[in-house]
């Protein structure tokens, strides 16, 4: 095990309470930030909080990997589940936790250089406080084993996100309507989710996920359970930007402050997708006739529509950040398509793509954040000639872009290949056709930017020679190199995804 040293070096209290500390530490740090006297101290605390959370999630993962198929159950306040709130971490959410805390740590790292440029001289500690709350909320969604508690954490993170998106208004006033539309759509999603839980609570009398799952086989024909599934699917679908519920996403990503876009693109929809997997496979069983119909006739067509339509929309964007945002919706489609196959191979491919997409889209948004504050512009024309004036930033951008296309020797290739196998294994050749076609569309939209960057003369030669600052280049290149490394040896993420899928489907998991 690679993670063995993490476990052996961790102190006893950290190992015992890691499941809750991963949420509690950033959540308690957030109000402290609001009181922080200086911006720099606030930023250092943010980095410390996210890094600590990352460490705790690595510990969790190491514990899970010690005994394959195991799960950590943590009873909050010693109230035993199903009465009390339970944090339950198995191979599936351990992987998600590592992903979001890792990306969160990188995002907080680049917060300083980008924010210092975007908000000259303003007080940033409140903004960082919102960021840390959002981070804690997302970690909570991933860690909790309680259906209602999940809703609470979802709202914590969403409310913080609305604030974060609106903060982009200093640079571009369009951030305000973007935040407002996100607020409306996000609230709708949360309401749908709560209604769904209410219906399930009426049928089962419990809010603990594992407990609901146990009762599910006896309730296969129950109408309120079916309605509950529908409500939850729509609610989480809104949060995950499932087509056609994605309208809030492009503007929110395009106008938020740079590091917020990077953080959200790598984590927010991913957490919603994780909850969707949890609900669809661990709690409801896919062998219920009703659910398999939902997977094949609702989820798969919507996913394919997203892959094609949003990729085409991405081609026609002039703003690089909006283009990346539309591409994100399309990539959510890939993940949903993989999930809708419903087999272990499919869910595993979906999780792998979720993982690799966070890596590549995080790197892309990070590079754009580094460029945009240096150049004050994010249209494709602004990117012309940057290959010469900012070679390091743009080389990393190119690597991540190739990974997004799915070029061999990048992580994106491996996950798309796995997805293709999962589809063809089920005989879904029509879906595989859509998969390769959508990949081809991504060649076009990424190619447009890369061509401008490397082969066109700069629009305004005076603004030359501005590489992104070192604090941003380091995490950027970490992500870019990880993209390449996992394209060559994908054993680690593929293993995580396979274990996660097994845990989600209850295969070999010690329930």
């Amino acid at each position, binding site marked *: 095990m690679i993670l063995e040293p993490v476990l052996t070096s961790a102190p006893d209290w950290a190992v015992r309470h890691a499941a809750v500390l991963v949420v509690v530490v950033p959540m308690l740090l957030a109000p402290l930030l609001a009181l922080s006297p200086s911006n720099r101290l606030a930023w250092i605390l943010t980095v410390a909080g996210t890094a600590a959370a990352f460490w705790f999630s690595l510990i969790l993962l190491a514990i899970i990997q010690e005994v394959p198929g195991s799960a950590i159950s943590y009873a909050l306040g010693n109230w035993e589940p199903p009465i009390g709130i339970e944090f339950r971490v198995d191979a599936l959410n351990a992987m998600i936790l590592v992903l979001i805390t890792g990306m969160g740590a990188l995002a907080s790292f680049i917060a300083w250089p980008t924010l210092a440029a975007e908000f000259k001289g303003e007080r940033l500690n409140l903004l960082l406080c919102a960021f840390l709350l959002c981070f804690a909320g997302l970690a909570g969604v991933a860690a909790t084993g309680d259906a209602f508690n999940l809703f609470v954490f979802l709202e914590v993170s969403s409310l913080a996100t609305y604030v974060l998106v609106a903060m982009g208004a200093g640079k571009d006033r369009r951030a305000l309507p973007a935040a407002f539309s996100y607020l409306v759509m996000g609230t709708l999603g949360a309401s749908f989710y709560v209604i769904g839980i209410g219906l399930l609570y009426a049928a089962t009398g419990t809010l603990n996920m594992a407990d609901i799952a146990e009762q599910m086989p006896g309730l296969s024909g129950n109408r309120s359970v079916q309605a509950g599934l529908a409500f939850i699917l729509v609610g989480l679908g809104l949060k995950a930007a499932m087509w056609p519920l994605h309208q809030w996403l492009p503007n929110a990503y395009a106008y938020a402050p740079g590091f917020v876009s990077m953080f959200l693109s790598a984590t927010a929809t991913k957490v919603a997708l994780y909850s969707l997997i949890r609900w669809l496979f661990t709690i409801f069983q896919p062998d219920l006739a009703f659910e398999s119909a939902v997977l094949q006739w609702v989820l798969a067509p919507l996913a394919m529509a997203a892959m094609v339509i949003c990729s085409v929309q991405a081609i026609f964007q002039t703003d690089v950040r909006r283009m990346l945002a539309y591409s994100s919706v399309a990539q959510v489609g890939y993940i949903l398509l993989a999930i809708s196959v419903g087999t272990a191979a499919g869910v595993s491919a979906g999780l792998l793509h979720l993982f690799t997409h966070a890596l590549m889209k995080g790197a892309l948004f990070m590079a754009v954040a580094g460029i945009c504050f240096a150049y004050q512009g994010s249209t494709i024309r602004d990117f012309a000639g940057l290959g010469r004036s900012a070679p390091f930033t743009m080389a990393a951008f190119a690597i991540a872009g190739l990974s997004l296309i799915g070029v061999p020797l990048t992580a994106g290739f491996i996950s798309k290949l796995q997805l293709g196998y999962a589809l063809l294994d089920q005989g879904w050749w029509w879906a595989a056709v859509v998969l*390769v076609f959508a990949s*081809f569309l991504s060649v076009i939209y990424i190619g447009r930017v890369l061509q401008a960057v*490397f082969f066109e003369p700069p629009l305004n030669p005076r603004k030359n020679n501005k590489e992104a600052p070192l604090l941003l280049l380091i995490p950027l290149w970490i992500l870019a190199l990880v993209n390449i490394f996992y394209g*060559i*040896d994908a054993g680690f993420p*593929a293993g995580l995804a396979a274990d996660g899928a097994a845990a989600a489907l209850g295969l070999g998991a010690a329930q």
Partner: protein
Amino acid sequence: MTPQLLIAAALCLPLLVAVSVALFGKVPTLREGVTIAGAVALFAVVIQLTLLVAGGARPELYIGETVPGLAIAFKLEPLGALFALVASGLWIVNSFYSIGYMRGNRERNQTRFYIWFALALSGAMGVAMAGNLFTLFIFYEVLTLSTYPLVAHKGDAAAQRGARTYLLTLLGTSICFFLMAIMWTWVVAGQRLDFIEGGLLADAGLSPFVSSALLVLFVFGVGKAALMPFHFWLPSAMVAPTPVSALLHAVAVVKAGVFTVMKISVYIFGFDLLQATPARDVLLGVAGFTIIAASLIALRQDNLKARLAYSTIAQLAYVTLGALLAVEAGALGGSLQIAAHAAAKITLFMCAGAIYVATGLTTVSSMQGLGRKMPLVFTAFLIASFSIIGLPPFGGMWPKYELLQGAADASTAWIPAVLIVSALLNIAYLLPVAILGLMPLPGTPPAKEFKRPGGAPVLTVAAPLFTAALCVVLFMAAGPIGDFLRPAFAAGSVPGLEDLR
């Protein structure tokens, strides 16, 4: 050196060249010296490997699995050795030629040019030595991406447009069809992608429909084979500097394509399955159509490089045809064509480049009588034209002979007719260039003075003369090459070259 080390060296030497070129970019002589030294070293390594293969060994190198079931592995067999030998050997000649051309033409960004050129060679070596479809696909795409900056080298609008067509066609076909076919193969072959003698899919029990669909996806997915209607990227790629057209778009890239088709025919399908696949007959027809149609289009091109590009499309379809015939003589003919066409077509391109450097002329009509001023270049052009047409004593004869033999074995009566018509068309579009150059019609105004004082640089004349001589050598060496290749098509005992000796 152990076989593993040799394969690793063949893959890494071009990378090493790329890095050194980047380091020595400021000193042109050193930069180009490094390229040539690397090319010679690579050729030596490939010869070593070829000798091993000729001795019956199959050198292997196993890197590891990216995810379970998808291994990066290399295994050299006769076909790959031949392709590697051709690509690496001609790289040496082409490097000398590049020096003359790029300097003589005062091209910009020469360091970038040499870097990407070396990377492209690394891709070609990977394709040649790949041990499974997954590895082959990786290097196939490396080759696509590394040649894109070379096509776009000039950087003007025309170069960008051409390069975009180039990239979109090659990436599009490979992602939409080739990758799809690979994933499908993985599923039906029981999660394996290895190249296996006799065919990976031979015992998979595929229905005719599935095998047909797979074959169509493979043959069109390998866009580098330039089978119509996915051929238009090749004329687009002619905006590249001529050394690129010469080595990459007459040898490395396009040959990687047809080589891949050949590998798929021999090691993925196997001859028996291929013969039983209904779509094969249709695809044979497409290949035949490509041969004739591309030759007819070539006839109408006045731009010399465009004419050569269409000629390449036609000549590549010979290899595809040979691969699809699924008999030993056909596959042998196709493989010989890889070598013979490479030597001849690189000569033609290098001549075109030499003419361009000296005079700035690009159209055939403006070259009448130019042979009087550049007799060596036009002689080399004439010899290579003979080889393409298939006249003895030039290397281009044997592939056609073997293909005719294969067509007879596969009892397809129309193929000989296609080959004969194609030979006549070759005469019609190639010979006038050289003959009117050397012996202009009465009344043609004498050729103008050279644009570049002193005419073509020595290196740009010596290189095509050398490769023209190679065409003759290939005629003599066809027997040993055939013996070397034959173990690759183990099955069947169809009479081949040995009756001729």
